C-alpha cells in the first residue's frame, strides 16, 4: 500500500500539468486528475509490472480526458483561450517572462489535440517515444510524425508572431 503511495505521489504534479493543458479549466483538470488517481488506486494490482507507473498513469488520465471530450463534444466545449489566467503562469516570474510563457501556452492550445498530446508527453513529461505510443494507443511511427508536425507548426506560429506586427512577443524575441 505504501509502495503504491510512494510510486504514484511523485507523478501527481505532472499529471496535473498534463490535465491542465488538455482541459484548461482548472477545476475540471483537477477533477480529471482525481478521477485518474482513484482509478489508479483501484487498479493498482492490475497494472503490468514493467517498472515505472508513469506511462500507466498518463494512459489512464488521457483515456479519461478523451472520454470526457467525447461526452462533451455534442454540447460543445466552452473552455477557451481567455480562461488562461495570470495564475496559470508562474506568479513569481517577471512580467516579461510571464507574457512569453502565456504566449506559448496559447499557441500550444491552437495545435490539433493529437499533436499537442504527443508534444507534451514527449517534450515536457519526458515519456519515451514508445511510452507515448502506448499512452495514446498509436504506432510509434505516428508518434514521430505527430511530434514533427507539432514542432513545425508551433515553430511557424512563434516565428510568425516574431515577424508580425509589433507586440509583446516581438520585444521578447529581441532578448533571446
Amino acid at each position: 500500500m505504501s509502495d503504491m503511495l510512494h510510486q504514484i505521489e511523485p507523478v501527481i504534479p505532472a499529471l496535473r500539468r498534463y490535465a491542465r493543458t488538455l482541459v484548461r479549466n482548472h477545476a475540471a483538470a483537477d477533477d480529471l486528475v482525481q478521477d485518474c488517481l482513484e482509478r489508479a488506486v483501484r487498479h493498482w494490482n492490475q497494472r503490468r509490472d514493467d517498472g515505472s507507473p508513469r506511462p500507466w498513469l498518463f494512459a489512464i488520465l488521457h483515456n479519461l480526458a478523451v472520454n470526457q471530450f467525447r461526452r462533451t463534444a455534442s454540447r460543445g466545449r466552452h473552455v477557451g483561450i481567455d480562461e488562461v489566467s495570470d495564475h496559470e503562469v508562474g506568479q513569481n516570474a517577471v512580467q516579461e517572462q510571464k507574457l512569453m510563457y502565456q504566449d506559448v501556452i496559447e499557441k500550444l492550445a491552437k495545435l490539433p489535440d493529437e499533436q499537442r498530446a504527443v508534444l507534451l508527453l514527449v517534450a515536457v513529461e519526458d515519456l519515451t517515444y514508445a511510452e507515448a505510443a502506448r499512452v495514446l494507443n498509436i504506432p510509434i511511427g505516428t508518434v514521430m510524425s505527430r511530434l514533427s508536425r507539432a514542432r513545425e507548426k508551433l515553430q511557424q506560429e512563434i516565428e510568425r508572431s516574431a515577424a508580425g506586427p509589433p507586440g509583446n512577443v516581438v520585444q521578447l524575441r529581441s532578448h533571446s
Partner: protein
Amino acid sequence: MSNRPITEDDLHAYVDRALEPEREAEVATYLDKHPDVAKRVAAFSDQRDLLRSALLPIAEEPLPPQLNLARIIESQRRRPSSFRWAVAAMLMLSIGGLGGWVIRGATQLPTSGLTALAQEASESYKVYASDRIRPVELRDSTELAQWVSSQLRQPIKLPDLSQSGYRFMGGRVVPTAHGPAAMFMYDDDRGDRLVVLTRPMTTDQNEPMAPLSSGDVAGFSWADRGMGYSLVGPRRDDSLRPLANEIRKQARTI
C-alpha cells in the same frame, strides 16, 4: 561511425536527448556541416525549453486537498464495505429474479437459444466485472480449464486476447437456467473488463454472430457446433467485434 543516413526522427530524438551516445555524436557532426538543419534543430530545442519553463509553474503549484493521495487511498479502501452490500443486494435480486423466472417458466415460454445466452453473459458481466474484491474464482489458466471442462463435460479452451491488448484475469463456472457455463474475464491497461461466457446450446446450435446490448453493456453472441459464446463489455467499446471474431477463430481451432 555508422554510415546510416540521418533521419528526421534522429533530429527529433536529438532534441529530446533520446539518442544513444554514438548516434548523438553522429547527428552533432552532421549538424556542424549543415547549418540550415542545425538552425531548425536549435529552434526546436529552444521551443522545448520554452514549453518546459512555461508549464513548470503548474507542476509547482501546491496540490489541492482533493488530490491528496493518502486520502484517496483511504476512501477507496472504505468503498469495499459498501460494495459488499451492493453485491449482497444484487445477489438477493438475482435470487429473486431466478425465483420469478422459475414461476414464469410455468406459464410462458422461457427465453432460449442465443437470446438467453446473451442475457446470461450480460448478467455475469454486470455482477462479476464490477466486482473489485473477487471478480474471478480461479486465476490459474490450467486449473480453470480443467475445472470448466469437467463441469461442462467437454474440453473448453480459454480464448487468448493478449494480442488484442487484453490480459486474461481468470474465470469461474456460473450457473444458468441451461446448465453450467464457463465465464472468462479479461482486462486491458485501462482497467476496462470484458467477459466471455460459453456453454453447450440445446437450441440455436449454429448461429451467426449477433450484436447484443442492454443498459451500459454491449457485445456479440454466436454458436458454433453446439457451443454458444457471448462476449460482453462496456458499451462505448467499439473494439468488441474484432475481439469476438478473434474468439470465434480461436474456438474453431480446438
